[in-house]
């Protein structure tokens, strides 16, 4: 029992680590760069406005896509590593 549940525990921890890392980026680009930290990025011009505006209207969306595909790809690898993937 211990061998298997030890592995299961590590699998879940690996998943949680990946989720937390992804959500930090998720929050940083949207709540950070696009909203709260926008004044800090005001000095970086992007086509008639600033980088914060770009993150609010485009940058965050592009980051979200990258985050999900990265998660799906890493997680499917982790599934295989711990032998919990589907047939």
């Amino acid at each position, binding site marked *: 029992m211990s061998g298997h549940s030890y592995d*299961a525990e590590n699998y879940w921890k690996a998943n949680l680590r990946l989720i937390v890392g992804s959500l930090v980026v998720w929050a940083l680009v949207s709540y950070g760069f696009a909203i709260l930290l926008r004044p800090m990025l005001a000095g970086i011009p992007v086509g008639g*406005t600033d980088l914060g505006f770009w993150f609010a209207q485009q940058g*965050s969306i592009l980051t979200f896509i990258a985050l*999900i595909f990265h998660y799906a790809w890493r997680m499917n690898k982790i*599934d295989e590593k711990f032998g919990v993937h*589907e047939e």
Partner: protein
Amino acid sequence: MSQFAINIMFVGGSFLLYILIAIWAKAGTTKDFYVAGGGVHPVTNGMAIGADWMSAASFISMAGLIAAGGYANSTFLMGWTGGYVLLAMLLAPYLRKFGKFTVPEFIGDRFYSKNARLVAVVCLIVASVTYVIGQMAGAGVAFSRFLEVDSTMGLMIAAIVVFIYAVLGGMKGITYTQVAQYCVLIIAYTIPAVFISLQLTDTALPAIGLFSTHVDSGVPLLTKLNEVITDLGFNEYTADVDNKLNMVLFTLSLMIGTAGLPHVIIRFFTVPKVADARWSAGWALVFIAILYLTAPAVASMARLNLMTTIYPDGTSAEAIQYEDRPNWIREWEVTGLIQFTDKNEDGRIQLYNESPAFEAEANARGWKGNELVVNRDILVLANPEIANLPGWVIGLIAAGGLAAALSTAAGLLLAISSAVSHDLIKGAINPKITEKGELMAARISMAVAIVVATWLGANPPGFAAQVVALAFGIAAASLFPALMMGIFSKRVNNTGAIAGMLTGLGFTLTYIFVYKGWLFIPGTNNLPDTPENWVLGISPLSIGAVGAIVNFTVAFLVSNATEEPPVEIQELVESVRYPRGAGQAQDH
């Protein structure tokens, strides 16, 4: 050919296509009806989620709100995409592993309680019906314009069409219909945007055009737009906002709500594997992003085009004569969604912001108030006409807007009907109901939901996207926390989950109803819905995020004060966490 005939051709043609697909894929069994037999490819599923997800709010209403609010309304863009990150990581794979038909079913099993399941049904119905109100309002606007009828008649037509194919199809019919609808709506949204982007910035990709140089003035498009609208007393388009708390909470509310909406979640039950559920979320967001990256460009370009239409010789020159107004203004006036009153009786259309700061200039120019009121929900639909695009583009956008509204309404009705027939009737009232009886109950509940939503959609508590935002707040405060705790905590028990859902839902609904009217009935609100009256400046649209925090807190506190969940429930939680490990973990 008249514009009316072209509209009929596009709208009629696309509808015929959907109905044919619905008949071809007619649901045979209850499993087909709810989850399409579980055999949908992640890319196909992603596209169907895209159509399901992008509703009248995204298609018809959102760009209009961004055009009016500028940077401040970027919340819609981030909120309605960022939720997919939460879905992909926190819910979709585990709920797929759990492998049941409906969201309340998961909540009922995980919290080992029929009452939990019933509370989830209530949360689901409240959120979904609110959402459908927004769709009906949007579809009503589109039908009334393109069929040249008044808005009530437009709403009735919308209700009948939604009913017909939602009832015919079920999930299997809807999945393939929605793939077709995605194609129609995305083509309809992007083609006019490409034309307009080329006209204004000489750039074919609208998303790039947004940050490019405005051809006529030689300065960046956004700089030009800022100049034009500040000349007329409006805030800068790109201006930062003061109330960041509200902006953060609103975005959070939309994100959490996205992940908590049952009609999106049930989509993840239709992929064959857990790994596919993760990919599905990614593909869905790709398909959604095609519209969401175009929308802010549509918003700013339409706003600029509107201003140049009214002030063809620049903002310091005279506005156009009412008699010389373009045809699209005439046609939208018929629907009552554009209204002109010549307050200073000079025969010209003065469009400006009646702010105290601008009063002196307005007086100096002999203006006696803003004279043109444009309903924000018409901007996207009127966009091709404002830019003088050919008639077929206008017909196309009509078909696209209706595809968006109807596909989502159908998906929501399906979620409502499965909650009623499967969770409420089969799960609680009459477990012995036959498959046939269950299907009948599903169809009757769809009909009831449509009638209620149509009735409330005649006087919606806001623009389509705002009504939909309320639905998200409700889902965020009630269902998402229960689902997430059900997967990520083994400690949260039945009492805690029920208490959490009830307080989250109750708190959020109360806050919304105080400002928007009880049960959204106009005139029954206790306080005027203006920023000065909001607690800490938090709008009713943003309160869902706070409701979610209330839900989590109550659930944890109550659970810790009561007994642990039984061992078999803790094992169930273990099992949903591992794509395959479930059986093995229980063997020990």
